[in-house]
């Protein structure tokens, strides 16, 4: 991973996160390595409990007690909009105060369950407006809104004297727009709400104005998920993490949401991480895949490469376990053994107890993620092929 900072928007190195539970310390993340290229859609795949969600939360430092990020490096490479210079931000060393600017504005996350994530007592529009208000410069919005309003009243006005008066006012605001003052709270709120409605429109909500006035429980699951995506995208974040964002939805809605994400990526220019255990979703939407197993990264490559030439035995097992329409099998092949207990994880390579190719080396030495073939990283002592 020696690429220039301009290409890579987010990188994670050697990340360790533990959970201190009653039974013992759960070593949930054990040296995770990831990178996300600017403009990519990356799939982060693995079995349930392999640490995908913990990785996502660690990136935003949202791991709550009894969990704790132990060590590692998470870097967000921000491109300065004016100078075009790359400014790396080390997330783990940010202060609480600086962290607030990162969350929602630079990296946003969409969570799994649309039923429990929106706050039930606030209107959808207010919840989106809240992020906008927090992170966005609304000075222009406020003035635009005022001008728009005046123009509307101008149309309905027949009295020529008043027309002149309104036109003067519009002129005044146009002048003001060159160097807009800080708006007062009420105006800013109204402008933020207007943006929220725009966002809802962007995620293709029917009649966004009325949706914005509704409470979460009045919407269907798919609509709520879209509202959450609107919330996440409201500040044009550099990275959008979708943590199983489509798992709870039914297949047709899931397809809609995925299509929407792809579309929005082009429109806003966000890089996306899609966390899922559904290989179909990955094949359809992602151009890069990172595979995780038991808290470690095992393989990272272009999607096409992964499906045609998996190098890690685990990835291979994972792919053969996916049912295919054109094959007629009595029983799907499965990976032998079960997911290891992360309180007492296996030594060396965490996959070695279930691996058919395991050697003595695998039991003692933890394999490093290396670029085995061009554009294809694998952490394995005995890769396939």
């Amino acid at each position, binding site marked *: 991973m020696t690429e220039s900072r301009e290409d890579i928007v987010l990188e994670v190195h050697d990340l360790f996160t533990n959970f201190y*539970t*009653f*039974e013992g310390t759960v070593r949930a993340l054990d040296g995770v390595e990831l990178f996300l290229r600017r403009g990519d859609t990356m799939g982060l795949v693995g079995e349930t409990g392999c640490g995908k969600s913990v990785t996502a939360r660690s990136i935003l430092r949202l791991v709550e007690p*009894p969990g704790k990020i132990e060590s590692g490096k998470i870097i967000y490479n921000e491109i300065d909009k004016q100078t075009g210079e790359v400014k790396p931000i080390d997330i783990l060393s940010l202060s609480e105060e600086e962290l607030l600017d990162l969350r929602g504005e630079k990296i946003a996350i969409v969570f799994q369950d649309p039923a429990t994530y929106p706050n039930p007592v606030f209107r959808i529009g207010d919840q989106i407006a809240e992020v906008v208000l927090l992170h966005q410069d609304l000075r222009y919005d406020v003035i635009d809104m005022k001008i728009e309003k005046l123009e509307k009243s101008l149309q309905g006005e027949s009295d020529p004297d008043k027309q002149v008066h309104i036109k003067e006012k519009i002129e005044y605001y146009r002048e003001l727009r060159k160097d807009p003052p800080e708006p007062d709270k009420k105006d800013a709120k109204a402008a933020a709400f207007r943006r929220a409605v725009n966002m809802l429109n962007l995620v293709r909500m029917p009649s966004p104005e009325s949706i914005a006035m509704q409470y979460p429980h009045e919407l269907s699951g798919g609509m709520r998920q879209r509202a959450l995506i609107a919330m996440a995208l409201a500040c044009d974040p550099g990275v959008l993490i979708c943590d199983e964002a489509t798992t709870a939805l039914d297949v047709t809605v899931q397809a809609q949401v995925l299509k929407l994400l792809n579309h929005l990526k082009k429109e806003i220019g966000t890089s996306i991480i899609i966390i899922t255990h559904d290989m179909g979703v990955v094949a359809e939407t992602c151009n890069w895949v990172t595979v995780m197993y038991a808290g470690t990264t095992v393989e990272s490559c272009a999607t096409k490469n992964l499906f045609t030439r998996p190098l890690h035995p685990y990835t291979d097992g994972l792919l053969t376990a996916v049912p295919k329409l054109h094959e007629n099998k009595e029983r799907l092949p499965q990976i032998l053994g079960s997911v290891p207990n992360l309180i007492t994880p296996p030594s060396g390579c965490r996959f070695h107890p279930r691996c058919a190719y395991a050697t003595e080396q695998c039991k003692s030495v933890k394999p490093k993620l290396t670029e085995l073939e061009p554009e294809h990283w694998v952490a394995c002592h005995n890769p396939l092929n």
Partner: protein
Amino acid sequence: MENQIAMTANEEYDPMQFTIAGITGMLVGLVSFIFGIAIFGGLFVAGILGLFSIAFPLPEFFGSIGLQGLLALVTGFVLYRTSKAIKKHELWAFSTSLYINIFAIVVFVSTSYPVVLLALLPLIPLLMLFLPNVKTYWYPTFREDITPRIKELKFSLRLVAKSPLVVAGIIILLVFVLFAILAPYIAPYGPEERLWSDGNLPPLSPSNQPGRPDHIWGTDNSGGDVYSRILYGAQIDLQVSITVVIVAVTIGSLIGAVAGYYGGKIDELVMRITDIFFAFPGLILAMAIVMALGERSLQNVSVALMITWWPTYARLVRGQVLAEREKLYVEAARSIGASDTRILLVHILPNTIQPLTVQATMDTGSVLLVAAGLSFIGFGPPAGIAEWGWMIATAQLYFTIAPWAVFFPGFAILFVALAFNLVGDGIRDILDPKLRRR
């Protein structure tokens, strides 16, 4: 179903033994049920007739074991039902029957002579469960079932031992229970004993009567020994609050379970009635009931408090039953043809026991407070009886001379109520699966 599968392996299968076990159980259940009806129904009839001022003399001992009568009634019914299921070889009934028999023995042993002999009866079906054929049928499954539960219990007990507040609560309660039991042996003076020469003595002062013990917590206005009276008061206060809660829990959860399980009009009716009861603050309703009952006695206070408290448990159990009823495993049980009793006993009741225990423990403290408050405003036991609330009520008139006579009884109330709250709070945290594994 499950029993048939298990049965095929057993070659020396003798259905007679099951029939014997079932029938003895049913008989004992019937006896217990009839006995319960006799006592509880008798008390009930006496109470109703008493309202119309018709004398209905009851045998002396009946009055003292009304609570056990109620419990015998309920256990009798359950025992009958489970034994019937044993006859039909239904696997679930065996362990339930085991528990119910043990519970029946405890209930009867806790009654006084001559009913205590009835405790021998549940022993018979209990032993019947261990007939060789019967035992091989249910015991392995039972053991498999019980081992993780015992493990869980041990784990819970370890958590209890680790929580200093719960341990403190339990110790306080144990001390006061010991006080209540041992009062006649350790109290230097009798509960109603008054030494007129010893009025208003401060704590730790010797008696003015030669040869009498010191008054370690002083005396009240009429020369009663505060320490002794508090010890004897523990008998009354603990007895009242615990009995009230047990009866209210039994009645309330029966009504709540029926309302929740059958739903519809019964449920609607029960909920509206509880609504009305909840429209009164506890002390005020109890006060109005005692007032209407007329006579100033502990019994009336207890009855009033029971009437005041049952709706709490009816609501709690109803809610739990409603929640459990909708769950998949109950649906599954119903779809394989399990009876209503079985579903209630095996699936739903065990899930309501935990919140019920927590609520009941905390409520015992509240009942104690309300009972003390009632006697403070004049609805307690007859004047002169050693009861904490009443002690404060009488002593506060002389508080400028003898403040200690107010201070110590109040402290006793505070301590016991605090202990119940500590234990209830602690149990809730320990049983809460969300907090459990942290």
